[in-house]
């Protein structure tokens, strides 16, 4: 990587070091190092400030479901992230399950089905979904979508209620995990689509034309040439989407009617995610409250960090193969 870069970027002629060069070059390097420092700072400050509450906590932070952290100085706080972590993973997984197949379909549509001239415009329209602020998604979800979805939930619960996920009685307000998951799915659709589309377009022309020349239909060409080649890209894109869904705050905070329980019933109110819990609890936090919320944020930071690094690794590996 480094060797190719130094060959394309020519070195300035050797000579005496000009003062301007030294200042400019060091400023540039300093900015880069500053970014590393900021990231290290994020981790360091979260750890330092969460220490206070974690050391006062009387319950096991990782296995407790209650959140009793807003205590006075003489009381003992007891809180844990078990329910929150479960809710976070459930919401993100639900969003991923809904969004990934649709995103792959859209990526295929833009890459291989849509008319050539329209393709970039259509890609731009899908990107518009990413431009809409999350708080507007939340408003749309709570102010419009949940009412529209309630009859559908009723139907789902009537016919598929024997599956625990869809068990009734359904929430009459529609402010459920299912609604939150659907809105999250819409929000992560553009990123999965963008990355899958890029990888699909990288499929060597020869592979595709060979398949078509052998008489394959378009679907057979996609199944034999495009999908095997693009699979790591789709997985990487889905994981980036997962990372975004895990950290998304507003849509969940506004839509979900929260409860700190571990419940698999998507159509009933309950569950809560880490991010939404922080946003909702922060204004009322007293005592060890803020510090405890920072500890929850640290858990979220760790989860998203692992997911994102794994996703980057998968996508980068594909890039190495295709170049």
């Amino acid at each position: 990587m480094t060797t190719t870069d130094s060959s394309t970027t020519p070195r300035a002629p050797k000579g005496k070091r000009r003062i301007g060069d030294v200042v400019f070059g060091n400023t540039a390097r300093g900015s880069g190092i500053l970014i590393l420092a900021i990231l290290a700072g994020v981790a360091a400050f979260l750890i330092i400030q969460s220490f206070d509450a974690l050391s006062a906590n009387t319950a096991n932070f990782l296995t407790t479901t209650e959140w009793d952290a807003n205590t006075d100085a003489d009381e003992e706080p007891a809180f844990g992230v078990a329910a929150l972590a479960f809710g976070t993973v459930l919401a993100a997984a639900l969003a991923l399950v809904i969004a990934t197949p649709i995103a792959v379909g859209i990526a295929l549509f833009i890459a291989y089905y849509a008319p050539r001239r329209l393709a970039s415009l259509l890609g731009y329209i899908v990107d518009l979904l990413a431009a809409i602020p999350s708080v507007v998604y939340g408003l749309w979800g709570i102010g419009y979508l949940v009412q529209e979805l309630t009859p559908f939930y009723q139907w789902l619960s009537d016919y598929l209620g024997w599956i625990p996920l869809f068990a009734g009685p359904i929430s009459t307000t529609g402010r459920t995990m299912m609604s939150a998951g659907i809105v999250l799915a819409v929000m992560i659709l553009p990123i999965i689509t963008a990355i899958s589309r890029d990888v699909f377009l990288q499929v060597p022309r020869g592979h595709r034309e060979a398949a078509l020349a052998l008489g394959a239909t378009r679907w057979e060409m996609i199944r034999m040439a495009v999908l095997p080649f693009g699979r790591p890209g789709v997985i990487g894109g889905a994981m980036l989407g997962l990372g975004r869904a895990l950290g998304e705050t507003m849509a969940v905070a506004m839509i979900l009617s929260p409860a700190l329980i571990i419940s698999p019933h998507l159509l009933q109110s309950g569950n809560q995610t880490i991010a939404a819990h922080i946003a909702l609890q922060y204004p009322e936090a007293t005592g060890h409250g803020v510090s405890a919320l920072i500890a929850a944020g640290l858990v979220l930071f760790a989860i998203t960090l692992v997911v994102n690094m794994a996703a980057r690794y998968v996508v980068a590996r594909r890039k190495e193969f295709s170049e």
Partner: protein
Amino acid sequence: MTTTTNKPSTGAPGDGPDIADRSLLTGSLPRYFAPALLAGVAAVVAGLLFVSGSFGLPLFAIGTVVAYTVLITLASARVENGRKAKDRLVTTVVYTCFGLAMVPLLSLLWTVLSMGIERLDGYFLSVSMSGVTPTMDAGGVYHAIVGTIAITLFASLISIPIGLMTAIYLVEYGRGRLKKAITFFVDVMTGIPSIVAGLFVVALWMMFFGPGNTNGAAGAVALSVLMIPVVVRSSEEMLQLVPTQLREASYALGVPKWLTIVKVVLPTAIAGITTGIMLAIARVIGETAPLVLTAGSSAVAINWDLFNGQMMSLPVFIYSQVRMGDAINYERAWAAALTLILIVMLLFFVARLVSRFFAPKLGR
């Protein structure tokens, strides 16, 4: 080439008539069949729904798509063959996926437009919520617009120099482990949840200014944590597009490296960099969670001072109105959402125009 194509017919003459029977044109549905079938199915489904008295747009769309998918697959399986039927099935599914993505986009834009337009007028944009009780039929978003502009500008002031200089380092100077580390961690930084950025600033401010200290500057710092990686990514891409020959020509004339970057590389890439920065601004201007934690969510008066007192912003305004939950609050929230969407769309649109009209003329 010719020999290979001829081989089957010459090698196995018995297949001759069979191949002629299955020529490319027989046994395939005519081109107009698919659109005609779609129109027909739509008409029939609409008719049935009207007769049964349960017409609704979602039901109509679902009914049409399902019926069309089944019919086109069956028709193709009967007239063409199994493989083509599968191909048509997948084609329908892929088109449906795209249509499915358009549903929330159009529904959201339409809902925000129709609900927001009622309250969005000169009055709403020009007054604050100062002295307005939550249920009173008055008040506007002026203070939130002020806050959004102040916080976003300050965040840009922090992020653009850092982001741009880092991109210059990565493209023009960087080599070795430091470059690899920065590239990797900028990627990691793009994935930081916005609420964690907010908590980081909360922790930072707690350490330096004591607890409960919320002001606009804290919000701006939180936003710049989210904005810097986006600026780095887009600027880096644009700088890499600058042709190496331009740099070489400049060096050949004896221009120092830093002047080459400032006078040759940056002007060439400036359109793309501007576009990237505007898109980054459009991204952070709608951020809510970090501002709720750092800039406060209860300011009602106009406040231009970033370093003193809580500061409202458009996204936080929407959020806090929804939390209040009355009909009038929702009206305000919808109108503010429309304002916010218009600002974001404007940024997007201008960014596109900039990249189209001010793109470098490389003399192709």
